[in-house]
């Protein structure tokens, strides 16, 4: 087995890999999107994935791509906040705080949608926005940022996003 930094990081943050795949499968099922193959975790790149049929329906594509992203982000903020307050803000030696921080960062570091889904979403969103699709209009800036980050940083965008959300969101919430 070739231990690349990506694989090592995926191993250390496996709950995030599993959660993203499970959440994506969940949304595929919810929107009747055929899933041809699922890998929840494995020694490859990507470590986990959901191979689904091409999606043309915008809401379905939106939820299948961004649903896992939002769930992972929300869990990242929650767990990192539970860890941040005792460890950083209140200086309480709380072992559970370290566990929650690890869990939160794991979710955050694998929250990013896959490059293929983002590309597909990015190609559909402007057209939908022009047709006054509220979901497309509201999420266009987010999709643009995610798409640009994904193109610019590829794998490292995920890590940077996870670290940023996990560390900065609790700061923003509890140190206004």
């Amino acid at each position, binding site marked *: 087995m070739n231990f690349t930094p990506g694989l090592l990081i995926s191993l250390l943050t496996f709950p995030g890999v599993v959660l993203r795949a499970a959440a994506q499968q969940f949304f595929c099922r919810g929107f009747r999107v055929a899933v*041809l193959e699922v890998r929840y975790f494995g020694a490859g790149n990507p470590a986990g994935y959901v191979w689904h049929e091409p999606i043309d329906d915008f809401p379905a594509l939106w939820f299948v791509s961004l649903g896992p992203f939002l769930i992972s982000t929300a869990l990242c903020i929650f767990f990192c906040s539970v860890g941040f307050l005792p460890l950083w803000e209140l200086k309480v030696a709380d072992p559970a705080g370290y566990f929650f921080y690890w869990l939160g960062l794991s979710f955050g570091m694998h929250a990013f949608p896959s490059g293929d889904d983002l590309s597909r979403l990015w190609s559909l969103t402007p057209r939908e926005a022009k047709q006054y699709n509220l979901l497309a209009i509201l999420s266009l800036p987010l999709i643009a940022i995610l798409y640009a980050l994904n193109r610019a940083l590829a794998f490292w965008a995920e890590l940077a996003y996870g670290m940023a959300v996990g560390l900065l969101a609790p700061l923003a919430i509890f140190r206004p």
Partner: protein
Amino acid sequence: MQTGKCETCGTAAPLNEMYQSGAKLVCESCAKAAGASEGGRMTPAVDPTVCSECGLDNGTSSLPAVADLPFCEACRQTLYEREFPDWLKLGLVGLALILAFAFVHGVPYFRIGWALPQCERLINAKHPERAIPNLITVAKAAPNCEKCLLLLAKAYLLAGNPMAGMQVALSHNHGRFKTTDLFLEVDALGGRANRALKLIQEANGLAPQDKSVEALAKLREARQLYPQFRNWPVIFAEFEMSAAFDAKDYDRLLAMSENFWQQQPDATSAGILALSLACKYAVTGDDKYRTAAEEMLTKGNNLAVTEQAKKEFADYTERTRYRLRTREILSKKEYYLRFPKPKEEHP
């Protein structure tokens, strides 16, 4: 099942056992040979009549395709309703449990996390006394949080309770903190409060030496240094009343005591007014002063809620009753020289 003919060697074989390179169809053995030379760019050919999942042969009819792959009805259904494996279901239950535990575990921290900025806002909005109860809770939960302790010390200092503020600051690492803006602010505030307390002590030392003017100047300087001190009304009132008492000007003493009671109706001002009324009774023998003094003792007794206030008020009561009983006016110092306080017993 469909069959195909290898475009390299001409062999016929089932289509789903053949390979494609672009539009070219080849058999397995030719694919292996060509794969090596073409860098392995061979993909398995797809037979639209054979299910990609279970291998069901649909004869000559093509099966419906999902993502360009043929699937029979049963397999196609499983693609749309793919089950989660049991271990994943268990994992998700575990995650839900961890989430619940984190929530329960985090609630006290969240409360503190929300309370801290609110306390800061209260302090900045000049309501430090309202921030103190929350900050006490925070400091108990996070005794090593320097920010929390400094905020509590600052709130105490700004609320005019310097002793409590200094006690909080000294309780942490012998008063040593990391140098932050908040620390510098509390340090400066504490320093001013400390200098003011020393000046009050000096003024108290000057008062009995008939140096009231110098003592008053020191008190004013102290008040300028630390205007937040909550005892200023009492200190100034007591100082001026003490001057009137020393001058045996009981009318002025009574007027000031009544004024003090009007401004700050608590056990202390009630006790001082009772003593002043007792002075008037002592010099005039007029029962109306005696009755008024007794009324003030009753009022003060009702206002003394805390243990400390009750203890202090008992002292006022004892001296007032002595004055009413004997019509002899003794200063506090004279009274306790004659009737020393019993030493407190410690368990």
